[in-house]
């Protein structure tokens, strides 16, 4: 019994170290001058620590604008994907539609093209719509890779709910939308939270489309801004600033996860316990 407990804790520890070490490394790198990072043997403890890198990035207007843009884009993409995705999933899963499988297949087909291939054409259509170098353009183009996942996961969730659910609602005279809104959606909340989180993070960290569809700091998002950080010369990589920016950019995501993870995990079981 004790052995099992120890193995369990060991596995946990390994897991956490494996996942978090690079993050710790980034934290350590953000608190010391870059040169220290490449010493042999490696220096694991940032002492004496300096907040110079953080001062540097927060004084950078381009970085701050990037943060703002990322929040707007990622937030909007998530809300839009969840809204349209859950509606679509509900229809495909519960309304017994003909051609549901074909639609699902077509949606999945969107994720089968290499990003770089689609890039040129997405660029063309975004320009055509007059949305080049704008946040709306980014939000729209991000739908390409966030909507399919949302639709598929939520379709799965809706399908696993028992059939009889809506029957009683329809008998009571409820319309399709009311049934969706009041009954199905709340029950799929673990799925909504999970895909919402994944979508937010995917949109937050997206680089290629953001690089190609925006040019000025007004519309640039944070990954592109970080990747474009340059040091004193063009050959140098300003690790201190990059690591500091990483920390700044990841911590809100971590907080977001801590807030939403309860939602992911306490869906039906919470209801069962309370009932």
């Amino acid at each position, binding site marked *: 019994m004790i052995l099992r407990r120890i193995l369990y804790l060991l596995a946990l520890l390994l*897991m*956490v170290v494996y*996942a*978090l070490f*690079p993050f710790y490394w*980034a934290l350590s790198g953000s608190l010391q001058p870059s040169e220290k*990072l*490449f010493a042999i*043997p490696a220096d694991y403890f940032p002492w004496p620590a300096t907040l110079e890198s953080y001062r540097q990035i927060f004084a950078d207007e381009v970085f701050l604008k990037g943060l703002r843009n990322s929040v707007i884009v990622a937030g909007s993409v998530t809300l839009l994907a969840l809204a*349209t995705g859950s*509606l*679509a999933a509900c*229809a*495909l*899963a519960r*309304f*017994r539609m*003909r051609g549901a*499988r074909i*639609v699902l297949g077509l949606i*999945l*087909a*969107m*994720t*089968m*093209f*290499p*990003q*770089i*291939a*689609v890039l040129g*054409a997405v660029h063309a*259509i975004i320009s055509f719509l007059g949305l080049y170098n704008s946040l709306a353009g980014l939000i*729209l183009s991000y*739908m*390409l890779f966030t*909507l399919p*996942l949302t639709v598929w996961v939520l379709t*799965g*969730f809706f*399908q696993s709910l028992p059939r009889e659910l809506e029957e009683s609602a329809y008998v009571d005279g409820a*319309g*399709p*939308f009311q049934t969706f809104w009041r009954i199905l959606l709340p029950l799929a909340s673990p*799925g909504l939270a*999970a895909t919402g989180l*994944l979508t937010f993070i995917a949109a*937050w960290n997206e*680089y290629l489309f953001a690089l190609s569809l925006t040019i000025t700091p007004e519309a640039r998002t*944070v*990954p592109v801004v*970080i*990747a474009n950080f340059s040091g004193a010369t063009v050959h140098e990589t300003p690790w201190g600033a990059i690591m500091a920016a*990483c920390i700044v950019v990841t911590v809100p*995501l*971590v907080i977001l996860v*801590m807030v939403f993870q309860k939602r*992911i*995990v306490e869906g*039906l079981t919470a209801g069962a316990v309370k009932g």
Partner: protein
Amino acid sequence: MKRKVGLQYKLERAGWLFLAPALVILGLVGLYPLAQTFIVSLTDARMASGEPGRFVGLRNYGDLFQLKPFWLAVRTTVLFTAVSVTIELILGIAIALILQSGLRARGFLRAAILVPWALPTVVSARMWNYMLVDTYGVVNDILVTRLHLLPEKVAWLAEPGLALMAVVAVDVWKTTPFVVLLILAGLQLIPRQTYEAAEVDGASWWQQFRSITLPMLTPTILVVVIFRTLDALRVFDAVWVLTRGQLGTETMATYTYRQMVDFRKIGFGSAASVTIFALIAAFVVVYLLAARSATGGDDQQ
């Protein structure tokens, strides 16, 4: 009977209405670019050359089918995907199970696990690059100098066999959280009473896992596998930053990127993209058919 038909009609109509926003958006942002790629693949267009491309029909495809490097890239990508997704699935389920059981630091742990996914790939790939450097990289420092697990420092990214392993390791590190998150959500669909009933019947943990958890988790696993596979087949960032596709790590996406962006051959590159799309689509069809028979021909999918 009449009422049921009326209801079904109402549902179908509502269904198309519900689907409309998603279909419109995807049609705009998805269908047009895909069609455009098809068309460009039939020309010899070069990016920003100042001249439009000439129509060459299927010549790009003909050239592509004879090019060994392309098919080698396809093979490498499939190998990478198979290994990567398998590891991520097993690791992901294990971690999700550990995280689900009652622990006080649950919230923090779940957030901690998500960090690799949350760090921007652009940066984490470069960080891993530096950590894997043979002389001053942290990985060698820990394995060789501190823990003495290896006799001498290894150039992870400079040896043909190891390079692919390193890329897989970084990809697994980065995307396992994705699997964990979805499996965690899927685990919530299993009502606790089922487990309680099994415990009363005296089933062991492994028996519970095999007869309750795994079957009820199957739909989630299928979705996770298909999306992870699609992503793995298109892997680009990690490979490009770590090895640039050298030493046997050239994937379909790095090959296409090189053709389209470095060489600016968007005509030929588009043909490569269309071929990749066809290969992936073929795989998906096979997978979905197999999945359907695995779940007993369920009428849902």
